[in-house]
């Protein structure tokens, strides 16, 4: 096996995409044609260097783009609920209906649960992807662990965001209000699902082209730039959950429905804690065996 063949094998092993691989091989072939005695370095080391540098940029870029797509979806979702709610005489919150409304139809409960939980996971995961990408924005080569967490956060955010978008047409279908928002919801919801899912292959590509640098990935405290040893990921999750409960209760008071606010607050606060417990390690909020 000659040098170029070895390089091609190592590039493939490092996860360099086919087109990029062909380009690199063509460049090295041209180089060797110019100077057959050129000392280009060990193919494995070069492949790792390409994977390190390109993998870092790909993971970071994918996280930024995933967040941007999720932000678009979130803005549309908020606008739809706000306008839909206003059209039907409701308030922002989760739309027009109090939680008890959903309980009247048993099949709404699992459907809305999945959509609400997905939306919150998407928001958290996408935001955390942006946070870590921004924190590592000047790092020329990130660790494989950091890249993996970035890709997971982007991937989970996109898939959960797409799942949450199902709520848009479904809610309006089952409510069956004759409003121009119904038409918009039925068309915009699927369009956003397509937008979000269309980015998943980017995450897969980024996951394949992972940097080879070893080292630990930071946790939530690193993402937030907290150096106080008392600020552990678990404590942050608890504080955040309490804050969510208080905000939702305040929203309930503002909407003249304290009971609804408390119910939503407890649900959202508990969802935050459960999400942390279930996805905390997978999304790099806490390190395994720590906190």
């Amino acid at each position: 096996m000659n040098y170029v063949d070895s390089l091609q094998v190592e590039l493939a092993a490092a996860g360099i995409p086919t087109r990029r691989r062909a380009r690199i091989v063509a460049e090295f072939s041209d180089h060797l044609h110019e100077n057959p005695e050129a000392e280009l370095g060990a193919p494995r080391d070069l492949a790792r260097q390409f994977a390190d540098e390109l993998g870092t940029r790909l993971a970071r870029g994918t996280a930024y783009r995933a967040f941007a797509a999720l932000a678009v979806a979130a803005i549309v979702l908020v606008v739809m609920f706000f306008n839909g709610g206003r059209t039907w005489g409701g308030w922002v919150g989760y739309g027009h209906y109090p939680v008890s409304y959903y309980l009247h139809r048993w099949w709404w409960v699992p459907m809305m649960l999945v959509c609400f939980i997905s939306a919150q996971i998407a928001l958290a995961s996408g935001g955390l992807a942006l946070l870590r990408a921004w924190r590592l924005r000047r790092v020329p080569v990130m660790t494989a662990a950091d890249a993996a967490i970035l890709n997971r956060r982007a991937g989970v955010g996109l898939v959960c965001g797409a799942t949450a978008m199902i709520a848009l047409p479904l809610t309006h279908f089952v409510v069956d209000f004759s409003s121009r928002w119904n038409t918009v919801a039925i068309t915009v919801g699927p369009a956003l699902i397509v937008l979000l899912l269309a980015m998943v292959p980017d995450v897969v590509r980024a996951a394949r082209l992972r940097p080879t640098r070893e080292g630990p990935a930071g946790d939530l405290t690193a993402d937030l730039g907290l150096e106080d040893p008392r600020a552990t990921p678990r404590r942050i999750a608890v504080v955040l959950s309490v804050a969510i409960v208080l905000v939702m209760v305040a929203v309930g008071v503002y909407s003249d429905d304290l009971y609804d606010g408390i119910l939503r607050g407890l649900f959202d606060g508990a969802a935050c804690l459960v999400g942390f417990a279930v996805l905390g390690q997978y999304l790099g909020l806490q390190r395994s065996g720590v906190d």
Partner: protein
Amino acid sequence: MKAEELKGHLDGLILAVVSREPLHGYAVIESLKACSGGELALPEGTVYPALHRLEADGLLSSKWSVVGGRRRRVYSITKRGTKELGVSRERWRVFATTIEAVLA
């Protein structure tokens, strides 16, 4: 000059030689050698990941050309690259002046 000593300066050096004229990978290495009187003899293969990185960062652009039946990727500096080169030059001037003041 050892490759280790070039760490942190390679990007600026590549931008500098490509800013003079569009070059392919081998020509970049030859140009670095020529400009430095042979002092910059870095491992040749390491220039390519740097070229790809600079392109991914939008500091270089590249396109294929065909020479003697072979495909060749030719790199040009972008506007952002020119701006970054100016920053690198200024950074180096301050660094060199500071070190010179201490060592002299």
